[in-house]
């Protein structure tokens, strides 16, 4: 278990309609303890997971969207959002939560966690991974 692998969690489903988004996040939180090289990708309907202002009172379900903002504390700092998926859905990066992490090596400077990348850049990122998690 000493080897470090590049783990990527692939998120392609909308939140609340199904539980995949939430139970995927549960794996990310648990997985953080294993000190692998972790990143998350959001594409297709998965980009909806990151929208601001989610309010689940009316449907009586747990609002798990604040958990994304806590990912930085779990040292999960590489979050890729696919540009084409946002555009097809009429969304911009401003519709998403602003996710940040604090860089210990630079006097806890706050840095953006989200990288907006194109589909072909995402393909390059996928190619460099060791394990892809799908839910």
């Amino acid at each position: 278990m000493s080897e470090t692998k590049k783990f990527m969690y692939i998120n392609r489903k909308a939140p609340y309609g199904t539980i995949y988004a939430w139970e995927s996040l549960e794996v990310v939180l648990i997985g953080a303890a294993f000190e692998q090289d972790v990143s998350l990708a959001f594409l297709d309907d998965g980009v909806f997971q990151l929208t601001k202002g989610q309010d689940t009172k009316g449907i009586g379900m747990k609002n798990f969207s604040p958990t994304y903002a806590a990912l930085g504390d779990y040292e999960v700092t590489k979050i890729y959002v696919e540009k084409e998926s946002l555009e097809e859905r009429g969304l911009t990066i401003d519709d998403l939560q602003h996710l940040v992490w604090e860089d210990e090596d630079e006097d806890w400077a706050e840095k953006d966690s989200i990288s907006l990348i194109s589909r072909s850049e995402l393909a390059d990122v996928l190619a460099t991974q060791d394990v892809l998690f799908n839910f």
Partner: protein
Amino acid sequence: MLHLVNKSPFDGCSLDTAAAIMKGGDELLLIEDGVYGAMKNGKGAALLDGLKVSVLGPDLAARGIPEDRLVDGVSVIDYAGFVDLVEANDKVQSWL
């Protein structure tokens, strides 16, 4: 006749088929992930043209979609309004 769509317009063809099958006087209600179909600039917008469309507000709020992001003319209703729609139409078709 009330048409129910609960899927994102990117997940299957439920919204496409519902919109194509709908007749004058029919109504469309978007629930669950179906509410994404009513977003302005989204894939579903073009399909809704000329249709009588409602979206379930609690599902919209859960997904963080402000009402001003919806296609013009779409009504936002609650579960009680959902019940009223079912009563007002002679039958319900769930496009699962």
